[in-house]
């Protein structure tokens, strides 16, 4: 056993992350494009383009439209990228390239494989959010230092959704068609109905409830709160608790299903 170190659960997590870094080196171009051009496109077209229209027509939001909308974009982008990262690569690990089955033959446990995979998603989202924040700031979309909290908030929101998606990816046996439904009927509508572009109070009753259920609205409220202020301490706790609930339930189910899938 001389060459083999004593198994330690935390280092195992990093071993999985390290693998993803190697994979990431091969796809850095697409990661770069997603990480830089998506924020640029949103900030320029909607934040500044649409923002000019809003600001010139009696903006009642109390801050320039870009300042209002950019934290929400950051959070929504984090959630969307995380959802995709938790869906297809995990499906591939089980089914297409079967790398998880290779990992399961090592000292790694299914739960560690699951955690490591999600840890990688979280790191990527964190890095993306930092870039997003820098682009926001470069275009005058930030007004106070508290806005840096958008980065951890967006990461938490993204993981609150990515963990259940990882569970679904571990359960799904088919070729991943279910993910098309997920993105078409859940992820995209969530972006439109979570108070990204305007306060959810503008929505009818049913629309507001859609927002309240979705983790994205809670993340958006927190991110916007950090960017603009005017958010109560109790509201902060409520939003955080709701996001944590999604994350923990998703993680528990994902770990369980990784175990089931890898021990067949």
């Amino acid at each position, binding site marked *: *056993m*001389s*060459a*083999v*170190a*004593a*198994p*330690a659960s935390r*280092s*195992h997590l990093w*071993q999985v992350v*390290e*693998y993803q870094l*190697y*994979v990431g080196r*091969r796809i850095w171009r697409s990661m770069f494009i997603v990480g830089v051009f998506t924020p640029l496109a949103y900030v320029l077209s909607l934040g500044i383009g649409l923002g000019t229209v809003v600001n010139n027509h009696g903006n009642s939001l109390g801050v320039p439209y870009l300042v209002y909308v950019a934290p929400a974009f950051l959070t929504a982008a984090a959630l969307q990228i995380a959802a995709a990262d938790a869906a297809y690569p995990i499906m591939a690990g089980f089914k297409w*390239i*079967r*790398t998880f*089955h*290779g*990992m*399961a*033959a*090592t*000292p*790694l*446990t299914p739960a560690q494989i699951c955690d490591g995979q999600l840890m990688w998603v979280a790191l990527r989202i964190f890095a993306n959010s930092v870039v997003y924040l820098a682009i926001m700031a470069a275009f005058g979309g930030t007004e106070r230092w508290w806005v840096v909290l958008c980065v951890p908030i967006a990461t938490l929101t993204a993981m609150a959704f990515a963990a259940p998606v990882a569970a679904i990816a571990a359960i799904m046996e088919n070729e991943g068609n279910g993910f098309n439904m997920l993105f078409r009927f859940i992820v995209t509508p969530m972006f439109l109905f979570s108070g990204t572009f305007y306060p959810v109070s503008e929505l009818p009753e049913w629309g507001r409830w859609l927002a309240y259920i979705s983790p994205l609205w809670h993340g958006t409220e927190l991110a916007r709160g950090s960017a603009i202020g005017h958010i109560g301490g109790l509201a902060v706790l409520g939003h955080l608790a709701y996001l944590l609930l999604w994350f923990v339930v998703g993680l528990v189910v994902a770990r369980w299903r990784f175990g089931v899938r*890898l*021990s*067949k």
Partner: protein
Amino acid sequence: MVAPSSRAVADVTSSPAPDLLIEAHGLTKTFGDFTAVDGIDVAVPRGEAFGFLGPNGAGKSSTMRMIACVAPITSGSLRILGMDPVSQGPRIRARLGVVPQQDTLDLELTVRENLYIYGRYFGMSRAALRPKIDDLLDFAQLTERADAKVEPLSGGMKRRLTIARSLINDPDILLLDEPTTGLDPQARHVLWDRLYRLKQQGVTLVLTTHYMDEAEQLCDRLVVMDAGRIVAEGSPQQLIVAHSTREVAELRFAPGENAAAAERIGGLLDDARERAEVLPDRVLLYVADGERALARAHEAGLSPISSLVRRSTLEDVFLRLTGRSLID
């Protein structure tokens, strides 16, 4: 590659290694109503090359996945390296090398990166891995492709990489599930040569196969599995002696005439151990003296299209024990 042999020595001195690396009693695996493995007993001592021979669906892979501490057992008892797979799975897996039936290589990474990443899963340091990887690349004859992506490699090269990868942690037991299935004959021979070297170095090998020549070449001892049960056990030679005759005469008649010919020949055989077996395309005569049996068939007026005499193999043992051939 010297590591596995030096390793075996190191282990004897450092920890009182159990005599039996694998010990299973009444090992059973069910999937719903289906019983894949039906109460088998297996014991593998250190240094042995042990084989599970049987057709597809015999329960070999299910057995291997339990031994690899990946799939839980349904009932019975199983101890690997003296430990319990349920409570000590990660500790056991740290000392196993696994070559799965289907490769699980990362095709996007290079050959070297695949080895490096896998070594990291065992908690090995960068410094320990560098020389180890060079040794394994050499052993697997992949040094020239070290920095090539895995995707375009041939099936044989991928398989050799999977075997190299399984040796990264100097395993106490190397588990090979159908190591050469799907490879062309030349690639299989290269692989057998590599596995034979490991065997010579004293690595404990456990393999499943439905190729009798593979079992004969590599296994000191094997069990024949059929429908989840062990139907025979012994060295290849012992099994042939116990369950077959010394020689086999193969007679090929015109399509549709094999059964009738077999019936006539059956009457010509004198010894109780001798018998005729009808396959769809030929008749097999299990006899002590193949040439003599052929001559008698000709004397009786039978004229096969072609004929040959050969030694009995494990294929014949399997046919005898199960009434079916290994490869359907």
